């Protein structure tokens, strides 16, 4: 702001000189928008038939894009200028809010868990909502699992979906060939996934950063391609179907049970309702997610968890302290993978069938986005980010086509706005509590 501008009750009197660069900036932005939109938006190809293509022009859309970008950029720059002082104050307010939030972790957590447990019984709940909640919880659990690898140990894993798939297919195979039930297969899903975690971990021990990311991505893709093509074992593109639903201590949720077995509604003397199973599944995943969280919180305070975080901070210093980076990395991969496997097992039982198309790279990217958007290492952040990323597309059902577009744009937008994630706070695992000045 130059000396010539005055501040009059929130209105800034701006000298004309400052408009020019802002206008120029907006015009350039609009021009770029035109050039970008012209080939792909302005000229649309469509099938004429017989393997030929025609072109439709949509120059009005291009013009619209130009105007929108112009207006948007102008507004952005102007608001930016106007609220420069405001921004500092609101940033301070946000910081205070965040600090308050961090102190209230326990009550907030309890409230959250209470809400989650009560959800199916609340008046506004519906089957749709519980289904949504179940999906959110699957992603929360996946996020917490990946958090161990990426958030705590700092190992960039872009192929986490592989462990998810391994867990699901382990259950699928065990049930198809050996008639395992959900609860019987669950530990095996975790075990097999953990083994795959170690298998992945070995080759990547010496890799850092982006290289590690690409190799893990490759690993995820290898798993997917193998699942897709190894038809005799995995069922190929059709996957494995007929996966049984979990039972409540032996009570099944079917309408009627085969000889000698009781069903849930028979046992409790209530009318059958398909909602029972849905609610039960919801509570199963809620329990699994909470166990994951409890485990993670606990393990952070143990030597192995601290070693993960130390490794993330500085691997060279870890070596100098006698910490074996290999075992630390492998343990992170294994445990992270284990939770992915558990989640995969649940996914299989919820859907009733599994196929390779559920385990694409986009899933890995989504889960990673949840971890990073939430704020690396932050448990609550993962919950928030999962709710955001899973529910938003649901609310925009009308814009189903644009779902992924908005998803991509949101990823870019949130990262640019808040690179450290929504909640970038790390709670120390140990306090001396000797300082009187706290």
């Amino acid at each position, binding site marked *: 702001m130059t000396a010539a501008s005055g501040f009059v009750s929130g209105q800034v009197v701006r000298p004309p000189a400052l408009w020019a660069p802002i206008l120029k900036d907006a015009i350039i932005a609009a021009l770029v928008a035109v050039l970008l939109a012209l080939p792909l938006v302005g000229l649309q190809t469509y099938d004429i038939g017989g393997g030929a293509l025609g072109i439709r022009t949509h120059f009005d859309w291009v013009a619209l894009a130009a105007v929108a970008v112009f207006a948007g950029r102008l507004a952005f720059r102007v608001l930016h200028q106007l609220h420069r002082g405001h921004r500092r104050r609101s940033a301070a307010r946000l910081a205070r809010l965040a600090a308050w939030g961090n102190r209230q972790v326990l009550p907030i957590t309890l409230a959250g868990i209470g809400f989650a447990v009560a959800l199916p019984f609340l008046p506004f709940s519906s089957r749709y909502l519980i289904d949504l909640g179940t999906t959110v919880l699957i992603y929360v659990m996946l996020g917490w699992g990946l958090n161990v690898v990426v958030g705590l140990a700092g190992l960039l894993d872009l192929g986490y979906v592989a462990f998810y798939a391994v867990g699901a297919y382990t259950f699928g195979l065990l049930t198809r060939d050996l008639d395992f039930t959900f609860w019987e297969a669950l530990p095996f899903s975790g075990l097999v996934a953990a083994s795959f975690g170690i298998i992945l971990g070995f080759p990547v021990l010496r890799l850092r950063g982006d290289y590690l990311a690409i190799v893990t991505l490759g690993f995820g893709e290898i798993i997917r391609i193998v699942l897709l093509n190894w038809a005799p074992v995995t069922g190929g593109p059709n996957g494995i179907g007929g996966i049984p639903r979990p039972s409540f201590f032996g009570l099944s949720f079917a309408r009627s049970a085969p000889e000698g077995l009781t069903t849930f509604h028979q046992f409790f003397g209530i009318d059958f309702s398909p909602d029972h199973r849905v609610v039960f599944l919801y509570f199963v995943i809620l329990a699994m997610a909470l166990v994951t969280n409890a485990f993670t919180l606990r393990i952070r305070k143990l030597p192995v968890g601290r070693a993960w975080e130390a490794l993330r901070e500085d691997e060279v210093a870890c070596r100098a302290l006698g*910490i074996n980076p290999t075992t630390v990395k492998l343990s992170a991969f294994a445990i992270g993978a284990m939770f992915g496997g558990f989640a995969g097992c649940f996914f299989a039982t919820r859907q009733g069938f599994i196929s390779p198309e559920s385990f694409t790279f986009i899933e890995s990217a989504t889960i990673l986005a949840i971890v990073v958007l939430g704020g690396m290492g932050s448990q609550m952040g993962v919950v928030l980010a999962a709710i955001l990323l899973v529910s938003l597309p649901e609310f925009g059902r009308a814009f189903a086509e644009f779902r992924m577009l908005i998803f991509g744009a949101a990823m870019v937008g949130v990262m640019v706005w808040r690179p450290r994630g929504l909640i970038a706070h790390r709670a120390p695992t140990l306090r*001396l509590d000797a300082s009187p000045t706290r």
Partner: protein
Amino acid sequence: MTGAEGPAALLAVEHLTMRFGGLLAVDDVSFIAYRNQITAIIGPNGAGKTTVFNCLTGFYRPSAGRLVMRRGDEFLRLERIEGFWIARRAGIARTFQNIRLFAGMTVLENLIVAQHNPLMKASVFSLAGLVGLPRYRAAERAAVERARHWLDRIGLTDRADWLAAALPYGAQRRLEIARALCTGPALLCLDEPAAGLNPRESAELNDLLLGVRTEEQIGILLIEHDMSVVMGISDHVVVLDYGRKIADGTPAQVRSDPEVIKAYLGEDDVLPPRRSPVGEEGGASATRRREW
């Protein structure tokens, strides 16, 4: 076995040589570091001091030579031990030229991580900790006590819950030393611990190191440029230049050694120095000016 058999000898470096491609960084260096003594390695920049450290602490594998470390009745050959095992088995802890703290963790956590190995043992790879067995909780309490002891010694007790990154520079240096000491080493290797410290802080560092030497009964090996630290507290000084040892003795001896003076103050040379490392350019007709 030579060298390491004397009553207080701790580490014997014998004919250590390190080559990087065509560059001879360390050339036939031998010296002995004793327990209960502070040994300083000094020399102009590029003399190979940090390279010696890296060979000692498992970051480089020496091209030739022996490094013998005495642990009780055992003699360990360091050049055969790799990486993190050096800290674990040989009991050598080090600090770095550029401070390498766990910046995102608190001061206390930094010191607890240093005790990772005994804690892992006590918790059976953390399993006992998972179920909250008393054996682990006792071990953790002991670890905290040990950390508290060092926090008191370096004066950071009231900042134990601060993020390590939030500490001022001098405090970070002290924390790194305390962290190394928390591993319970037999030999403490410090790489330029006084770098960036003002005279008052250097004096405090001297006190700390003298205290450590006396109370902990360990050997201290340090690389330093700050002569007030070197001359003030070292029992034994080794001088390197161009990768070779040019002097070895008490601080007084070294200070008046003509070779040392020549290496530090330089001369107007027309001929290249005696044995320049292979691959170095412009040896002839260059007046070499070195810094402390």
